[in-house]
């Protein structure tokens, strides 16, 4: 067990080093950071919401979007670089199981996404806090406005987003284990993310009565195979919500995310075990 863990950690360490050296990671990180920072300059726009909410929506939106792009493209690239460059031949000829290899890849990619989420969340938190302090200083002291920015909520959001990206990575790895080309893995992975974002529609439809058994069966399978990625998007409620989110609801989201993550990693390992290198 200890030896297996050590091998996985070495795979994830090398995967992490490889990923952070990629220009693609640096490019998306800089782009997302620029998006977060630029949100302050857009405060002249008014879409009918409060300014802090607009800044939060804009910045966290960038984190959700570019995080997903990074999770799909980078994970597929890290997997296929080992296969196409044939470094996997060298590694898998050693006493390293396919599952250890895949889990190592997962941990390395997840660690990179962890850095991505933490850096952006720290930037976003700083921007929100600074602007809120500025607005509070300008407000009438008699109004006794309470600060809306919630640091604890931001930490919870970081964990939820990291978990959400972990689910995406595990799906992309399962697809990559089956796919023959990088392009196929990226396209199907991206479609899976879109399906996950829209899964709530299938959930709603499933709750409505229908006469078609086939349609009902399709919805039942869809709502279980595809994770609801939308449920992780609680940025407003967690970071700016005055009432916050019920701990029980967050626990359900976390458990659901972990269940999907483990299920897709298991599936990926089973598929990869049969793959010819």
């Amino acid at each position: 067990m200890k030896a297996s863990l050590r091998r996985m950690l070495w795979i994830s360490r090398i995967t992490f080093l490889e990923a952070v050296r990629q220009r693609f990671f640096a490019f998306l990180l800089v782009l997302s950071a620029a998006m977060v920072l630029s949100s302050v300059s857009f405060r002249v726009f008014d879409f009918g919401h409060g300014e802090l909410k607009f800044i939060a929506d804009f910045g966290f939106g960038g984190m959700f979007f570019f995080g997903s792009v990074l999770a799909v493209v980078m994970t597929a690239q890290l997997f296929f670089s080992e296969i196409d460059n044939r470094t996997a031949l060298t590694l898998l000829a050693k006493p390293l199981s396919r599952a250890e290899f895949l889990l190592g890849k997962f941990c390395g990619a997840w660690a990179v996404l962890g850095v991505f989420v933490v850096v952006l969340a720290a930037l976003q938190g700083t921007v929100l806090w600074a602007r809120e302090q500025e607005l509070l200083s300008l407000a009438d002291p008699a109004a006794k406005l309470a600060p809306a920015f919630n640091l604890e909520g931001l930490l919870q959001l970081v964990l939820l987003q990291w978990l959400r990206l972990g689910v995406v990575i595990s799906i992309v790895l399962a697809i990559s284990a089956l796919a023959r080309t990088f392009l196929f893995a990226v396209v199907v992975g991206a479609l899976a993310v879109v399906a996950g974002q829209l899964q709530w529609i299938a959930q709603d439809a499933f709750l409505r009565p229908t006469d078609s058994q086939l349609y009902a069966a399709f919805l039942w399978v869809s709502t279980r195979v595809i994770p609801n990625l939308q449920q992780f998007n609680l940025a407003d409620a967690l970071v700016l919500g005055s009432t916050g989110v019920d701990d029980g609801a967050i626990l359900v989201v976390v458990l659901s995310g972990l269940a999907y993550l483990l299920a897709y990693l298991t599936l990926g390992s089973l598929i990869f075990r049969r793959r010819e290198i």
Partner: protein
Amino acid sequence: MSSAISVRHLTKDFRIGIRGLKLRAVDDVSLEIPRGQVFGLLGPNGCGKSTTLKIVLGLVSATAGEISILGEPSATSSARRRTGFLPEAPYFHKFLSGRELVRYCAQLSGVADADVDAAVEDALGLAAMTEAADRTIGTYSKGMLQRIGFAQAVVHDPELVILDEPTAGVDPVGSAAIGRMIHAMREKGKTVVLCSHLLGQVEQVCDRVAIMDRGKLVLEGAVDDVLARRDRHVMTVEAMTPAARAAAEAALAAHGAKVASVTHPRRSLEDLFRELVTGSRDA
């Protein structure tokens, strides 16, 4: 004692295209590779030798047949712990240094933490890569890549080392260096399986050879046995005059023997090259 590698009735079919047409890459191959020898697996491109090695290592599944490594079923973790592998045209992460790569492979191969440093230095020394070990792999020449690949294959002191085209694209000096590493492994009692197109080198370093063609094993045996022509003899004579030659031919004819040809012995171009090009170890 069991063989280093035992292959019995190995067959491998690849399915091609949507219709799933079968391509037989390996066709009922049976092979016993004894321990402690250097074994050469030869054949033209596409004859199935690399596929055979991949099946032995568990990287590709067999359609039929049984394989064991050092008495254990192949593709098991414990069998692979006792095996080292250098793939054809190896590629490694360019951002790692040679020493980091060998350390990484030592960790994956199950070398105990306390022994890793010594194992890494031993492997680098054996591959003559100690001096260049701290350079990143991206700066290595082809010959150095092969040698660092050799180091990662032997860092865990395996009993069996499988080398797939270790001298492909390497100049004769680098090729000779790899030949010396193979000799060193044999002297340590290891079994080396060598897949190569350089027949001259195979002849020099291998104890036994097998030749594959179109997925089938067409010949297998000790190098001396398969190459020797028992009905012919070679004598190397110094200062032979025409008269001496005529007398020798007459004497042989008196005993019913006939001189088939008289030629001057040649050294190989590789030997000549290695004599002239010296001092360079970094191929």
